[in-house]
């Protein structure tokens, strides 16, 4: 694990592969999109704050199986209510849009990985530049 | 084509029987249109006609709800109507509730197209807006001339099996179902119009009302715990063993009040959880984990708190509707205030 002030919680193998060495990655290969969000919620309950919005950009949350969320590496005493509200909203948004199966061939899966990676990658310069997380 | 047969429901006031002093008259049926029914006949034109009018006192209806509904449903059934309309009730609260109740009953039990009408702040509007079509009226009967055609138009649509438009198109109170339609102006123009109204303090209607935020400001902190009486209230479903009140494991419709006079500890022999939304093993082993009677008794003895209230309140939060939770809380709060409780420890699971 790196010594950065942030870590990425993900179920996306591409994020694991690309960021593991430079950024800390908590990788859960078996997690569904929903599992991953609940896992992030557990982290929030334990006192980690989320640093990136847990909803994918404008990729429909029920389409993509991949999700990566950046959280603080250090656990704090108190649960951060802003983080909690944000993650609860994301789970709610995923919940309301469930049950719409999408064809996922290899090419589509690979592209969803790329987009999810791209979204989290877009946050890296901000996270790096940020003194206070 | 023959005209659609319409049955109309009105209260004692609109039947010109009398005001509050006559509000206790039981339901009666009259042939043809009475009072506002004339306005409806005009609005229906050649397409429909009020064949019969049911009159009932507002007090009688609300005090004999089940009987009233059944009696009136029987009266309606006999007429074999194609359309049922009730009211409009404008701002009359009990009339609004009666109109909503009977319209819902006709819709669900008789399967007849049914429409009512009332003012948005009528308590009946909140109770029934998601169940039946309620045409939005102004707050006084002076609006009858405008309300009747709107109600008639929607009722005819339903009777003909035509698709109902969005609430803004067909003038009903928003029923929680978002429906697309084409406005006359494009969105940017509507935004500019709305902005100008907002700037100039003129009325405007948001196209998407934000969900209801029922946030409660916390009470000021208690300065001296040693003087206060504290009660325990939980949504964790802790109940005396056997769940005497049969509180549901999810989507609760009730809460329980349990006396803990002389109880020092919620043991596995005496208490358990009714909650179906979490692993009950640890709560059943020691219900104090959810409703901490043991620790509170200790605090009581040590003088940290003044007193533990001798009753605790419990329901299951699992899937329970916000509306039910609100109702429970209102009742629990009333009882706590009556018992002069100063503070509540609210535990959840």
């Amino acid at each position, binding site marked *: 694990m790196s010594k950065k002030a942030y870590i990425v919680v993900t179920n996306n193998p591409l994020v694991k592969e690309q960021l593991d060495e430079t950024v800390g990655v908590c990788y859960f290969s078996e997690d569904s999109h929903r599992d991953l969000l609940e896992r992030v919620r557990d982290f929030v309950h334990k006192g980690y704050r989320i640093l*990136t919005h847990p909803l994918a950009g404008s990729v429909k949350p029920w389409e993509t199986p991949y999700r990566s969320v950046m959280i603080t590496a250090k656990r704090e005493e108190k649960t951060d209510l802003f983080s909690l509200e944000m993650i609860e909203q994301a789970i709610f948004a995923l919940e309301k849009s469930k049950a719409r199966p999408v064809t996922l061939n290899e090419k589509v899966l690979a592209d969803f990985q790329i987009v999810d990676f791209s979204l989290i990658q877009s946050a890296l310069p901000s996270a790096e530049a940020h003194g206070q997380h | 084509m023959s005209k659609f047969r319409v049955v109309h429901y009105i209260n004692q006031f609109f039947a010109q029987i009398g005001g509050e002093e006559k509000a206790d008259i039981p339901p009666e049926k009259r042939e043809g249109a009475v009072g506002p029914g004339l306005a409806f006949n005009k609005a229906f034109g050649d397409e429909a006609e009020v064949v019969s009018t049911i009159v009932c006192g507002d007090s009688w209806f609300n005090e004999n709800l089940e009987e009233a509904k059944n009696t009136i449903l029987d009266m309606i059934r006999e007429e074999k109507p194609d359309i049922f309309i009730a009211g409009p009730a404008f701002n009359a609260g009990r009339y609004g509730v009666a109109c909503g109740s009977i319209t819902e009953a006709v819709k669900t039990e008789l399967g007849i197209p049914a429409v009512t009408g009332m003012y948005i702040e009528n308590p009946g509007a909140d109770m029934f807006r998601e169940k039946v079509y309620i045409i939005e009226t102004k707050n006084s009967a002076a609006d009858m001339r405008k309300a009747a055609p709107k109600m008639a138009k929607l009722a005819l649509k339903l009777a003909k099996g035509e698709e109902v438009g969005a609430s803004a198109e067909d003038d009903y109170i928003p029923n929680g179902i978002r*429906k697309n339609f084409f406005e006359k102006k494009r969105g940017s123009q509507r935004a500019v119009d709305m902005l100008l109204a907002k700037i100039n303090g003129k009325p405007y209607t948001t196209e998407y009302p934000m969900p209801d935020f029922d946030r409660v400001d916390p009470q000021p902190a208690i300065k001296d715990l040693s003087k206060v009486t504290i009660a325990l209230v939980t949504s964790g479903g802790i109940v005396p063993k056997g769940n005497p009140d049969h509180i549901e494991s999810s989507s609760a419709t009730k809460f329980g009040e349990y006396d803990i006079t002389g109880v020092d500890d919620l043991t596995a022999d005496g208490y358990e959880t009714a909650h179906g939304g979490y692993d009950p093993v640890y709560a059943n082993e020691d219900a104090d984990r959810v409703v901490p009677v043991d620790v509170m008794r200790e605090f009581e003895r040590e003088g940290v708190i003044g007193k533990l209230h001798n009753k605790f309140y419990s329901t299951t939060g699992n899937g329970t509707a916000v509306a039910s939770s609100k109702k429970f809380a209102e009742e629990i709060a009333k009882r706590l205030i009556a018992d002069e409780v100063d503070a509540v420890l609210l535990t959840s699971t």
Partner: protein
Amino acid sequence: MKLELGYIDIKGIRFDDYNAIEDGVLVVDPDELVKPVLEDELIKSAHFEIATPGESIRITPVKDVIEPRVKVEGPGEIFPGMIAKVDTVGSGRTHVMRGMAVVTAGPIVGFQEGIIDMTGPGADYTPFSQLHNLVLVMEMEDSGASAHEYEKAARMAGLATAVRVGELARELEPDEIEVFETPTIAQSYSDELKDLPRVAYVMMLQSQGLLHDTYVYGVDVKRTLTTMLSATEVMDGAIVSGNCVSACDKNTTYHHLNNPVIQDLFKQHGKTLNFVGTIITNENVYLADKLRSSDWTAKLAGFLSLDAAIVSQEGFGNPDTDLILNCKKLEAQGIKTVIITDEYAGQDGKSQSLADADPAADAVVTGGNANQPIVLPPMDCVIGTLDYVDKIAGGHDGSLRPDGSIEAELQVITGATNEMGFNRLSAR
């Protein structure tokens, strides 16, 4: 800044072996026009097709829609920082080829989206069914290049083509001329304007990574602070779309060029309100960026001494948070705010529409529920490919029926629930 738009009405497009505009008909030589597109080695194949309003044609997957324009007077050229050199645009005169668009189609990723039907029920929901479309269909080389590079190649090909087409309008006499002038701060306190309420437009731009990006003068918007520009700069292509997701509520380059909020605020400028400025702000992934950008929106609004503002959103989900933050912070300063959004209320319309909410957002205009189911009947001709229809956003397994009809949600239709308020579609 003062900009004259000279509209050249385009009434048709046809192919020939030369390029010209003749009696309002655009004539193009497709072989010649495609040559520079094919010079990009990432583009394996490309060709042009024509889609006319009312024809039984389906265009998919649509990437961008671009209106050809040409700068005939004043500094800079169309799409500065992208196609032209960086130079401040927004003044002088620009010719607009009204009634047509260059549409780019072709897959960038496997769940590419965007449908424009030129007729039938789907056509009612997209404004682009009303245009004469010159469609550039591209297929990417399977060269192992990244999706980012493919997106860029397709984006640049579309913009460059539009510029080449726009050039044909340079010497023509416009059918109509419209003048737009934005005030400086000092001018906004002139005698004619000083008593009117001071209003700005806050334009939110999607900026979250691949397929979600927007560029201003060539700068990737996610790396910017909230800033201001003249509304006329937008009309000269200062903002271009690099966005491929969420067909229904992304802002295509066409939307930017023809921003309806800007047009409608100009109509009231000097009459009922004082349109003092345009603020652009991003929609980033990183939460601190969201907080900072919305802080800056409120701060710039304060600098402009605003009385009121209109905020438009792009995309959905994560940007709902930016929208609500912007609205809350403006309202907190006493700036009366109207927001424009769209809804994801589920197919039955019963779910909560936005992922975020606040009581301060008490004046909302909606572009409709994007989850509304729709059946798009088969068309005689498909420009592009239906391979991706099963996977496009809002489509689901079995979206594409054996008879070629598509069962999906409004989401699949390009521009259907636009959050600049481009359309008449709404919901209650």
